[in-house]
């Protein structure tokens, strides 16, 4: 036998060809594949054809990925057939499929707002969207003017969106720490770019992107450092193996690490760093600093997408980390999470009161909501998981709808996000103001809206999990938060309109559909949530 064949044989023994379950990975593969095709579109399609092709491709990809998720759930992958795929790198189970479904639907609606081209006035006779004519051109420079004159639009946003969605789909399903990290980067990097692409107020947009990128890089570093320490602790990056070391049923498998395996210092510091990295993405206090600036500076469709989908993905990953990897540490992480939840609720609600910009207001409100969701996470019970799943579904559509309404209120400088300009909106455009009021009431958790059902679910789970005090703080924070939501409603309906106030642009059916979906989901989940609660509670079991 020749040496080469021997080597090949040996190599085959040592590195078995990975067994990939393409069917179960279909949602991720479809989205990432479409993103790659989108990049090719950018390279090969003529400029005229790109907008329609990209928007259609993104919509189709997300819709078929959602169909794949539904198909997987229908064949029992969420419950009885749940399992690990791709050699244990990813979990296909209830929470993963539920959250993937939510992320895909949210993104599908977000694509509608991305594709809106009626709101901005035409630039040199061509329809333009909310994104910069040419992202690389210096703001205000000759290159930008030329790009605007030529009527360029940045159709790259669609592949970027798809890549981000691909990462988000993997994030809550990741079943080892490296996959988690890669998913984080895959969805974060496109988001940094998307944030920088606003057509108006470009400097602010770029500033937001830079801040987001720097702080995001920081948090990624924390996460990575945490992963390294965890590896030192358990000798593995796989969730199940780390959990078994934590539970003391396994003394580690890597001989080189025998000296550190089971060292609790590594576990605690590593675990804390991991959780920090995720809390950053969630936007919980004290890792919330980026939220207001980024929400304000990013193009509003991106803000809406990011605020809704990122939160879903990040909470999914946080849930899996705490419930699958660190259940043995519940007594250690619970007090910390208590603190984070309480501070998030109160800081978010209190600081929001002083905000004068709609987007910043919604940013602080999202911080408060992160606190509410954490209350459900802390429950550490199956009903805690399902309540968080339900809350995320409810919250993401309200958020998306609210930001879609923000894109409609405009004056000469683009979107009029300063609150004083919203005065009297209810007089001039009762319908738009009423829709926004519905979203605000849902944020405030008024009964008959999805916000109330979600809040009730998480507080109920927290109370059953023995966190009654947290419920009381949550209720107080809700009362504070109600104040500023109501203030916006007062402004819209009870103030006299300003003479030179903004006008409400008439959107194309795209944004109208997005907002209508938001309203419909808000009301349906508020009045008849039972079906979705069932769905969430069936999906509430993690595969280990």
């Amino acid at each position: 036998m020749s040496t080469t064949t021997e080597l090949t044989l040996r190599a085959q023994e040592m590195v078995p060809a990975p067994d990939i379950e393409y069917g179960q990975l279909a949602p991720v593969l479809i989205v990432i594949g479409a993103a790659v095709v989108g990049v090719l579109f950018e390279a090969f399609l003529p400029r005229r054809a790109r907008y329609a092709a990209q928007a259609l491709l993104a919509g189709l990809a997300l819709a078929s990925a959602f169909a794949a998720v539904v198909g997987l759930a229908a064949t029992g992958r969420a419950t009885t057939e749940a399992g690990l795929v791709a050699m244990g790198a990813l979990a296909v189970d209830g929470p993963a499929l539920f959250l993937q479904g939510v992320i895909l639907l949210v993104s599908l609606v977000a694509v509608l707002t991305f594709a809106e081209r009626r709101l901005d006035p035409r630039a040199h006779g061509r329809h333009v969207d909310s994104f910069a004519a040419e992202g690389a051109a210096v703001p205000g420079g000759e290159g930008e003017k030329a790009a605007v004159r030529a009527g360029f639009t940045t159709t790259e946003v669609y592949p970027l969106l798809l890549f981000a969605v691909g990462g988000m789909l993997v994030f809550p399903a990741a079943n080892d720490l490296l996959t988690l990290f890669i998913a984080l980067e895959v969805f974060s990097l496109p988001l940094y770019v998307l944030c920088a692409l606003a057509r108006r107020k470009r400097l602010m947009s770029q500033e937001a992107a830079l801040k987001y990128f720097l702080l995001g890089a920081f948090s990624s570093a924390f996460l990575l450092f945490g992963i390294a320490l965890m590896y030192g602790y358990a000798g593995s990056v796989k969730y199940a193996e780390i959990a078994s070391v934590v539970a003391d049923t396994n003394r580690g498998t890597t001989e080189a690490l025998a000296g550190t395996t089971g060292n609790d210092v590594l576990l605690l510091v590593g675990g804390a760093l991991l959780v920090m990295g995720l809390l950053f993405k969630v936007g919980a206090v004290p890792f919330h600093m980026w939220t207001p600036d980024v929400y304000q500076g990013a193009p509003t469709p991106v803000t809406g997408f990011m605020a809704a989908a990122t939160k879903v993905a990040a909470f999914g990953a946080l849930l899996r980390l705490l419930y699958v990897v660190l259940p043995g540490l519940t007594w250690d992480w619970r007090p910390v999470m208590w603190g984070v939840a309480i501070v998030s609720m109160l800081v978010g609600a209190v600081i929001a009161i002083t905000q004068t910009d709609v987007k910043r207001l919604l940013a602080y409100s999202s911080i408060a909501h992160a606190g509410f969701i954490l209350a459900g996470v802390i429950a550490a019970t199956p009903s805690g998981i399902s309540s968080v799943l339900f809350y995320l579904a409810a919250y993401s559509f309200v958020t998306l709808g609210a930001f879609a309404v923000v894109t409609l209120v405009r004056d000469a400088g683009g979107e009029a996000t300063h609150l004083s300009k919203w005065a009297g909106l209810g007089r001039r455009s009762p319908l738009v103001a009423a829709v926004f009021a519905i979203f605000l009431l849902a944020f405030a958790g008024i009964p008959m809206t999805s916000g109330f059902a979600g809040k009730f679910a998480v507080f109920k789970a927290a109370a059953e999990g023995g966190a009654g005090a947290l419920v009381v703080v949550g209720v107080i924070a809700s009362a504070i938060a109600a104040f500023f939501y109501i203030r916006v409603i007062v402004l819209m309906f009870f103030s006299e309109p300003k003479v030179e106030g903004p006008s409400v642009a008439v959107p194309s059916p795209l944004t109208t559909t997005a907002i209508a979906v938001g309203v419909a989901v808000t009301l349906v989940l508020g009045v008849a949530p039972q079906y979705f609660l069932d769905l969430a509670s069936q999906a509430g079991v993690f595969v280990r």
Partner: protein
Amino acid sequence: MSFPLLTAVAALPAIGAVATAAVPAARRTAAKWLALAVSLATLVLAAVVAFRFDPGGDRYQLTESHAWIADFGVRYELGVDGIGVALIALTALLVPFVVLAGWHDADPLEGRTPDRRWRPTQGFFALILAVEAMVIISFAATDVFLFYVFFEAMLIPMYFLIGGFGDRAGARDEDEAAKQRSYAAVKFLLYNLAGGLIMLAAVIGLYAVTADQLGEGTFSLQAIVEARQSGELAMAQNTERLLFLGFFLAFAVKAPLWPLHTWLPNAMGESTAPVAVLITAVVDKVGTFAMLRFCLGLFPEASAWATPVVLVLALVSIIYGALLAIGQRDIKRLIAYASISHFGFIILGIFAMTSQGQGGATLYMVNHGISTAALMLVAGFLISRRGSRLIADYGGVQKVAPVLAGTFLIGGLATLSLPGLAPFVSEFLVLVGTFTRYPAAGIVATFGIVLAALYVLVLYQRTMTGPVRPEVERMPDLRKRELAVVAPLIVLLVFLGVFPKPLTDIVNPAVEHTLSDVQKTDPDPEVEAAK
């Protein structure tokens, strides 16, 4: 399955609200007539409810029960006892008058260009009907969660009614009026929302307790009461007290009880007279009703524990409300403070834990609704004529507008509980009921009656008697529409004052049930002592 009568009573105004809101901008008058027709049809249905209700029958009748949110242990459960029937009837009765009295309150300002999309008139009447629907559901709900949902949700239409359609009199210009209005609306909402959110914590706590002890969380009032009486559900003393406080606080804000009352004078002062009637005569009754049904029913021991404090607060409300009413310069705020005093009587009657006290309190809710409606609506007609809410701006009105003055006087006399008018019966019952168990409280409360005579008669004297002020010389008397509002109310006041039996027959069995929930019986008459 029988016809869901209670759902129908609530659904009719709800559908009417949607229909009214959908009337095109140019057809304002059609919207008004539609709202009036819907409210009258609701009254007919409510009358059917009252006749179908058998006072001697089961405790809860006309019950409906459907699955709603199984995950939260929530069912769509409706049912009425006598107290619920009386209050549903009151609500359905008053709303047509509110609509009729507010006929022109939401007309567009003169000189304002009509806008195709902005339809305040349609909105005004739609909101009134929406409030009616939600209040009726609250009176009929026997599921705590269902009750909570509508208890909270009714704040939103109420908020828009207060903030969006203020009284145009009393402020220097439209801008300042708008500012005061939105202040009043926000104050109303924040007080009630905060109370409601505290109640939410207690509602969740109740679920946790039932889930813990019964194996499955439930919000069904009957199920919880039965489980308590059979000993299946035993709340720890502290838990029960905390939950009671959570519920009671929300109801005390709504009712309103001193010291949580300060939103009421603002809200009633700044809103139009019909909306003020809606607040104090209809919506606030949900608070006192809920004390009877939920606080006493769910937490009997904690209710007994809290009784001394609640009685003291009720007495403070009675005296404090009356004293501040005497000091008011604004007619509507005076009526608001008078209402605070009256709510003190209602709460006193409820927590006296005697059948006369609670029966009286229930009658009081109904009679106070009618008498305040009469007084407030006539006051509203008066204010709309002169464009001022200040008492000092009036004088000698009875000479130029005798009918207006006369009806105002009757409304006022009803408010001070003159024998022969309906409120007398209830106030007397409350006092007797209180006296048999808490003589000292009864004596203090009696001072409230004296003070009531003072603020009503002084108000009448300053506005209606004396020399005719030049500004009121040309004041027209009540118009036909206004008479149609006031006359039936006065007839009712007299009728129920002379012959309260139909009402007491319906209410008394329900009160007996409530008392048996808290395991209280009337104290024995002290025959020995009298010897």
